């Protein structure tokens, strides 16, 4: 970095201000979460006697252990399958089809801007007809489909950037397309697959609309969906609500802090390509 000039000082000042604005709501929640239960705390005020036990209470009331399990099951049901079939289709569209099949790709891309609300009503009736209402599959199956536009778009873009010589080499060695895909293409696609996995994990974990509409029981929902129910039940008890909210957003924040570089790269690329 260059030596600080007045301009970079101004920039740093601006950035520090933005960082403060970003952090304030979290700090405000933390200070409220430590206030005595049933009180109306002030916006940002360190309590004289911090009630760390509020977190324990919130953990028990929200049944956090069950929620974690439920969210994990949903993520495990969605992400591996969605990543696998999106990778396959991305490869198929980039390497195995000619211009003639561009329309197929365009149909996938059409879904990129589709708001989930546009299909939520029929999804409800479809999931009900399948007998899956109020089960985790009511979230898992639709999400796999809803992620296809982005997943296929993302993986196709990656496979288009892979030089064709590679395919030729594998073909000359007599590899079938499947072998080439598994042994050559997928290992090379690891960074793209990694980013896609991170994004789909976040979107699934934080998914709210589907759980709210399709699953009544908060214990069968995602973390975000359960948080909605938690607010409905404890909305008036500010300390408990804030403690519960902080607990519920903790797992993704921890993962984010550990894999900061990968998350930031994935989120930025995801925005650019999406």
């Amino acid at each position, binding site marked *: 970095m260059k030596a600080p000039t007045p*301009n970079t000082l101004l920039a740093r000042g601006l*950035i520090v201000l933005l960082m403060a604005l970003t952090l304030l709501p979290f700090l405000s929640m933390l200070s409220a979460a430590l206030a005595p239960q049933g009180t109306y*705390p002030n916006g940002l005020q360190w309590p004289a006697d911090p009630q760390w036990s509020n977190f324990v209470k919130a953990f028990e009331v929200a049944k956090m252990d069950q929620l974690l399990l439920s969210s994990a099951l949903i993520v495990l049901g969605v992400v591996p399958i969605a990543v696998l079939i999106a990778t396959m289709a991305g490869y198929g569209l980039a390497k195995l089809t000619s211009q003639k099949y561009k329309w197929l790709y365009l149909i996938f891309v059409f879904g990129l801007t589709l708001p989930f609300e546009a299909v939520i009503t029929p999804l409800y009736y479809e999931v009900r007809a399948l007998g899956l209402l109020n089960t985790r599959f009511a979230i898992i199956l639709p999400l796999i489909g809803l992620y296809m536009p982005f997943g296929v778009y993302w993986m196709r873009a990656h496979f288009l950037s892979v030089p064709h010589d590679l395919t030729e080499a594998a073909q000359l060695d007599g590899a079938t397309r499947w072998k080439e895909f598994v042994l050559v293409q997928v290992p090379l696609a690891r960074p793209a697959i990694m980013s896609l996995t991170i994004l789909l994990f976040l979107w699934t974990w934080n998914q709210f609309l589907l759980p709210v509409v399709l699953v009544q029981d908060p214990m069968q929902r995602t973390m975000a969906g359960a948080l909605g129910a938690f607010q409905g039940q404890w909305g008036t008890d500010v300390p408990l609500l804030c403690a519960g909210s902080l607990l519920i957003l903790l797992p993704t924040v921890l993962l984010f802090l550990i894999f900061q570089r990968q998350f*930031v790269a994935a989120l930025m690329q995801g925005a*650019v390509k999406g």
Partner: protein
Amino acid sequence: MSENTASVPGNQRPPVRLPPSRGSRKATMTAWLFIAPAAIAYAGFVLVPLGMSFYYSLLRWDGIGKARFHGLTNYVTVLTDADLLQIIGNAFQLVLYFTLIPVGLGLAVASAIRGHMAGRFGTATRTILFLPQVIPLVAAGIAWSWMFASTGLVNQTLKAVGLSSWARGWLGDFTWALPAVGIIGAWVLLGLCTMLLVTGITKIDASLYEAARLDGARPWHEFRYITLPGLRQEIGVCITVTVIAALASFDIVYISTQGGPGITTTVPGLEIYRLAFAHRQVGLASALAIVLMVLVLITIAPVQWFTRDKK
């Protein structure tokens, strides 16, 4: 890509030139097998429901009893009913906050820093500014409901600087609830836009700025004639992401205001949910859903058109 499969006989392998078997039946089969799982999932849970949405939108149906064909009446209602028009208008008002604040502040930071953010400071900045992207929108909604509450930090700050008369229950105020919801969205999207623009500006050739300075350009001119055109793509990305977030918003509104007071903060996403599942007007809900989808498409299309790389 050059493709001259037409000149290659279908089942005969040419000596070196590949792809050899494109166009042959077996190759087509393989391609379909690769694409089929994704296509089936997409068709089953997106395309078919979308078709059903359109079909429902032509019905008068309470979701339980018999449905009656209703023609385009639902669409007429969506486009003429005062409440529904206000709800659609609310979504576009949210665009102002969701889009202008993050893009404006992001541009300010980017043009001030105009360089890489390296080292610990850079890492800390990235980490903190991306936090709102990682947490569920629901959590952002709860955090800000608390910020905007009558004893929350916003009012506390106003009182501290002697503006007690401005303090209010922001999310329950007929005038201020929608801007307050807009601020929540701006907070969520601010970091992402800032980082995209800061990264984008490092790709602009620094010699352009030097040349401009030698020519005696003012900072405003540098911004207008170098920074803005150079960041066209990144700005396009930010606008696209934020506009979709605003028009299709649901989570934040559901948590922070439930669409109230009155319908001052109700957005199409929330109204679809209410109409379909609380008021049992599935046809009208579906017509609103289709209109929302079309609105997103026609709002995004010009942005994509103007900001695409025209090289």
